[in-house]
């Protein structure tokens, strides 16, 4: 045990983790395992370019998850990974490292590293994929020096098979003198929208040049669409800004917003610390709101006119997107710690959500389809792709479940 620290925990003993993995899936799945290539499973198809799948934060995918989840492999990643990205059969994750916190490309088939950044930077979150560029947040520990960096994806493949590190030459542009980010940025039509602790701004995805900036103080990550960008603020407001920088609306919520906004067609959704989920139009007029116990932290998933809202009280409510009317209610049971505080994912056949006491649920129509014990609390939403579900937990594990040999 090390002296207490509020910073990201250090990397744990990999040998210990490998030892744990032996009992369930064998060494092949353990990151840094020294037995080289693994033949377990096929790589996962699909692309998840940003947190919650898209710029609108719908948390919705046409992909299927497993029917009979079996742990395929685990890998050591940092908790600030949140929900990983998925591109070209690789999960983009963050990992603690003695010389920095690099970004990793983790092979979806084996859990081994395909590439890692090697630029002495500490990364927060995983960023957003914009065409051939990965835009991520980097900072210097113990300082207020934060920046966005654009990494050329084509350079995120090591030339030398024996050296998987990526040098600074992968960096296309970088910002300076930034604040700490509120979640990962999103990108629409060559603009990148960024919420920090101090402001909201848009920059050119190709050059990194700032297009506009507002002095709102975000309390949430952003969501966007072709009209503009949306964010909650520490002043208890829900703010919409056109892509040109003109204010669309400012809605007083009465409480500090705590969930990333969700864009569902004409409807914008946001949850607050008072437990209220509010739906507004693009002009800011309120459509409906739903109150509840405890703060809302997890953004709702939206699909087929239904809003799936995870709640602190251990329930998930399915509501009509039109009027907020309740469709069904899922109660996870358990004690007061069985709470939903991360985003949910709506897959093709089920809703996927993980409770803070470390249970991963697949839910159909308000009933449990299956559940598995994760061994740690989730730090981001489940990622569903190609018959598998992946999730990062606070014990520094990226876990991937699929249907095992039956798949």
């Amino acid at each position: 045990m090390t002296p207490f620290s509020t910073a990201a925990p250090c990397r744990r003993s990999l040998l210990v983790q490998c030892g744990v993995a032996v009992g369930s899936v064998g060494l092949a799945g353990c990151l840094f395992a020294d037995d080289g290539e693994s033949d377990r499973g096929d790589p996962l198809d699909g692309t998840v370019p940003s947190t919650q799948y898209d710029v609108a934060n719908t948390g919705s995918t046409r992909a299927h998850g497993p029917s009979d989840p079996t742990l395929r492999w685990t890998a050591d990643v940092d908790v600030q990974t949140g929900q990983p990205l998925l591109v070209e059969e690789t999960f983009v994750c963050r990992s603690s490292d003695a010389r920095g916190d690099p970004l990793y490309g983790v092979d979806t088939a084996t859990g081994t590293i395909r590439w890692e950044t090697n630029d002495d930077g500490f990364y927060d979150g995983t960023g957003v994929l914009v065409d051939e560029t990965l835009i991520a947040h980097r900072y210097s520990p113990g300082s207020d020096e934060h920046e966005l960096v654009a990494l050329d994806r084509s350079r995120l493949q090591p030339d030398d098979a024996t050296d998987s590190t990526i040098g600074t030459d992968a960096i296309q542009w970088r910002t300076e003198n930034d604040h700490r980010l509120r979640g990962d940025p999103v990108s629409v039509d060559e603009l990148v929208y960024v919420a920090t602790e101090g402001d909201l701004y848009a920059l050119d995805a190709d050059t990194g040049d700032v297009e506009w900036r507002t002095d709102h103080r975000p309390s949430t990550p952003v969501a966007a669409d072709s009209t503009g960008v949306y964010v909650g603020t520490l002043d208890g407001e829900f703010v919409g800004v056109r892509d040109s920088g003109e204010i669309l609306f400012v809605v007083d919520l009465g409480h500090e917003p705590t969930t990333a906004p969700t864009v569902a067609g004409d409807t914008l959704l946001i949850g607050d610390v008072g437990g209220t989920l509010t739906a507004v139009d693009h002009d800011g007029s309120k459509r409906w709101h739903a109150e509840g116990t405890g703060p809302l932290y997890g953004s709702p998933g939206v699909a087929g006119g239904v809003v799936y809202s995870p709640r602190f009280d251990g329930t998930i409510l399915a509501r009509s997107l039109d009027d907020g009317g309740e469709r069904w209610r899922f109660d996870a049971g358990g004690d007061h710690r069985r709470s939903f505080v991360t985003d949910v994912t709506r897959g093709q056949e089920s809703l996927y959500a993980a409770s803070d006491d470390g249970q991963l649920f697949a839910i159909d129509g308000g009933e449990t389809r299956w559940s598995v014990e994760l061994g740690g609390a989730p730090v981001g939403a489940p990622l569903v792709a190609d018959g598998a579900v992946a999730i990062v937990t606070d014990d520094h594990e990226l876990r991937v479940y699929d249907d095992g040999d039956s798949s």
Partner: protein
Amino acid sequence: MSLHRRRFLALAAVGTTTSLAGCEEFDPLVYWLRFHLDTWVGPVPEDDGWLVDGRVEARLHDPDEIDDRDDSYVDGFSDVTVFVVGSDGSVLERADLGEYTAGHADATEEAGGYVIEDSFTVETADPPVELVLDCAEFEDLCEAGHQVHRYFLPDEHEPGHAGRLATDPWQGRDRACDDESPDVSP
């Protein structure tokens, strides 16, 4: 409550100590009294109250096992208290946890010393914005470079945030040496 023998090496013990040539270099232990990050704060369902369901950790030594580090160790904490503070700065509730000595420990750690884990629950009418650990030896501990913990919501966030202390926006700090215990006077 009796105070256990508790001696500190002068402040030189804090930080890496390099001894004479030919002798081994070692990092002196930092003793602590801290919250476990799993400590939970949340509203009570179907109720207007709030619950703090927490754990406290302490690191100390058994004086009978101290040989070559005389005068450089902590062998107990007494009057250990958790203060739950509201948005107006007043103490909403407190949990008195008593004393911790090696005799209370059920584990040792690789770096040396005993680790004690204790748990507590506190219910409050209003949402907490700060949890403060305190003990009778706080001032001496702090001045010797050891760590006593507080967790709080940064000012910009309004009360009502809940969840494990490990998650945003809760932030942890070592208490400063001039940090007085929360005022519990009526």
